[in-house]
Every structure is written in structure tokens, then in C-alpha cells.
């Protein structure tokens, strides 16, 4: 299945682009994708997951719905989903 990964602010910088299209096996969870991203991009390492949970400093949306209010890391992705991953920013 195809999932569109979207990165904002410092995460976009870590990945080098805003949007990455990626194929995943059916049944892949948000947690599995985040582990894969931490593995793949050095600057994302340690930024997304803490003690097996979403870090409290980030927000993850599955097609516009917060992962926190779905099944968190266990949320199963579907074909065509957009996974948006963003940190807070502080500049003013």
C-alpha cells in the first residue's frame, strides 16, 4: 500500500524534503513507520519515539487525525493515508 509521509520544520530538514511517497506492507502501523524513519535518517534518530511511545514533543496525524486519539503507535495505516509528522516551533 502507498502512504504519503509529510514532514514539517526541523523534521523536514532532517529528511531533506517535505513529502516522501513510500510503499508499505498491508497492516503496517504508525510505530513501525516511525522506527523505520529513525533508522533511515540520522537526524531523526531519537526524535520520534521514547520508551516505545510517541515522544511528547511531536505530533503525528494519520490523514488529518491525531495518532494520539487513534491507537497511537499501534494505529494501522491504510492505502492512500497521509502521515504528517511535526514538532513544535518556537521562533517569533
Amino acid at each position, binding site marked *: 500500500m502507498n502512504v504519503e509521509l509529510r514532514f*514539517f520544520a*526541523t523534521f523536514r530538514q532532517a529528511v531533506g524534503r*517535505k513529502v516522501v511517497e513510500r510503499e508499505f506492507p498491508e497492516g503496517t502501523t504508525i510505530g513501525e513507520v516511525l522506527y523505520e524513519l529513525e533508522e533511515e535518517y540520522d537526524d531523526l534518530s531519537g526524535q520520534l519515539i521514547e520508551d516505545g511511545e510517541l515522544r*511528547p514533543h511531536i505530533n503525528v496525524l494519520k490523514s488529518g487525525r491525531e495518532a494520539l486519539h487513534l491507537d497511537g503507535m499501534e494505529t494501522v495505516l491504510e492505502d492512500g493515508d497521509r502521515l504528517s509528522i511535526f514538532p513544535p516551533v*518556537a521562533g517569533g
Partner: protein
Amino acid sequence: MSDLSLDATQLDRYSRHIILDDVGPEGQKRLLEGSALVVGAGGLGAPVIQYLAAAGVGRLGIVDDDVVERSNLQRQVIHRDADVGRPKAESAEEFVADLNPDIEVEAMERRIAPEEARNLVADYDVVVDCTDNFPTRYMLNDACQIEGVPLCHGAIYKFEGQITTLSPDGPCYRCLFPEAPEPGTVPDCATTGVLGVLPGTVGCLQATEAVKVLLGLGETLTGRLLFYDARELSFETVPYQRNPDCPVCGDDGIDDLAGVDYDGGCGVASD
């Protein structure tokens, strides 16, 4: 509503509001009787202060502990070359006095301390977060939630902005991001650079929200986070919900700021 009436000069100055549907003379009176606390008189604060003063928001609190630097002038449009070295709060106060004599300014040349945050925000109808650091942002969120004051949030990074409005009935900023990144992990404008016009766009959206809050007009960004991307010139809005476990606005949320570690990750101590 008091019996404040508009004089001839005010009828002229605010005529485009007064003839506007859904604002009118009553709305203009609300603005003139209203108050806003603008925290930060830098990139975001500059357009917010400009537009709230121009709109006739009668009492403006302006808080900033910095002085104007020459490198600020590329985006902080209320400060001038001659202001370099002056406190930003003082320069901002002078800007407002020159723009609109109707406005009473309370300039505060300091950083807000946790001990005073609740009393300070409670003295205003709306707070606009134009700061450049996480500790003050989390403190304003927490204080405004506890005191029931709406908070118009805006933040920038290089070419991107995030804007939302945090209403007293939630959700709050900690529903989006429960804790701040560790100090030093998210670089600031001085480190990364910032497109000069970016805070102009983001600050104008915050000012729009503040004016709407004061007027009770339209739909605010409550429960919606707006991403602005200047490079693509795109806007994207995503909904977010109250987190029942939120340490501030959740079912067991805090009712004072004493247990919050604003010098660290802004974590809330659990009982």
C-alpha cells in the same frame, strides 16, 4: 457595554470598521474598550502591535526584555534604525503613540516570571503569543488555560509558520505537544535565519484572530492548527482534539504553575 461613545475623530478614523457588516459602531466600541497582551515585540509582535493599535484595541500590554538589534530590522517593522540599542518595549510603545493616540500602552521591559504569569494574563481580554522561546510559550498556555483567557498562538521556523487559537474551553497547546523539546534542540531564528516577511504573514493571522476574539466574530482557529509554508505559498489546516490526559486542560489538569519545570522541558510534575 459602557456608554463610551465615539467622537468625530474616531468616527472618521474607524469609519471602515463602522460601516462594515458585523462590526459597526458597537464592534468598534468593543475594540476600544478591549485589551490585549502582546508577549514579544519582535518579528511576530511587530505586525500584531501595528494592527491591534490601528484597529483601536484600547489597552495594549507589550512585554519584551530585549533591546532592538540592527539584525532585527529585516523583519521587526515597528522598530527603526534609530531604535537600535533601545528596549523593544519602549520602541513599540512609541510606535503605538505615533500611530494611534486612542491606545493606552502598558510597556513591560522584562521576561514574564511564572509567579506573575496568571495575574498578568488575567488582566487582559486576549493574549497574543509572539515569543521566541518554549518556556514562555508553555507558561502562557498554562496561565491562560487556568485563568480562562483566549491565547492566539503563532510560531515561525525559517520559511514555515504554525498558528492556532487556544480557547479557555480547550483544546490547549499541550494537547498538541505535551512537553517542549529539550533546550537547544530546536534552533532559533538567530541560528537558522528566517525569511523577513514570514513573521509578517503569521503575525497578521494572529492579529486577525485576536480581533475576532474581541469582537466575538466568526470562527477562530480553536481546535485547528494552521500550517503556513512560504516556499510553496500553501496553507494547510489540521484539526486537533482535547487530550483527556492533558496535564493542563485534561480531567486532572493543574490549577497553578508551581509544579511546572519551565527551565527544563516544561514538564508538569505528577502528584
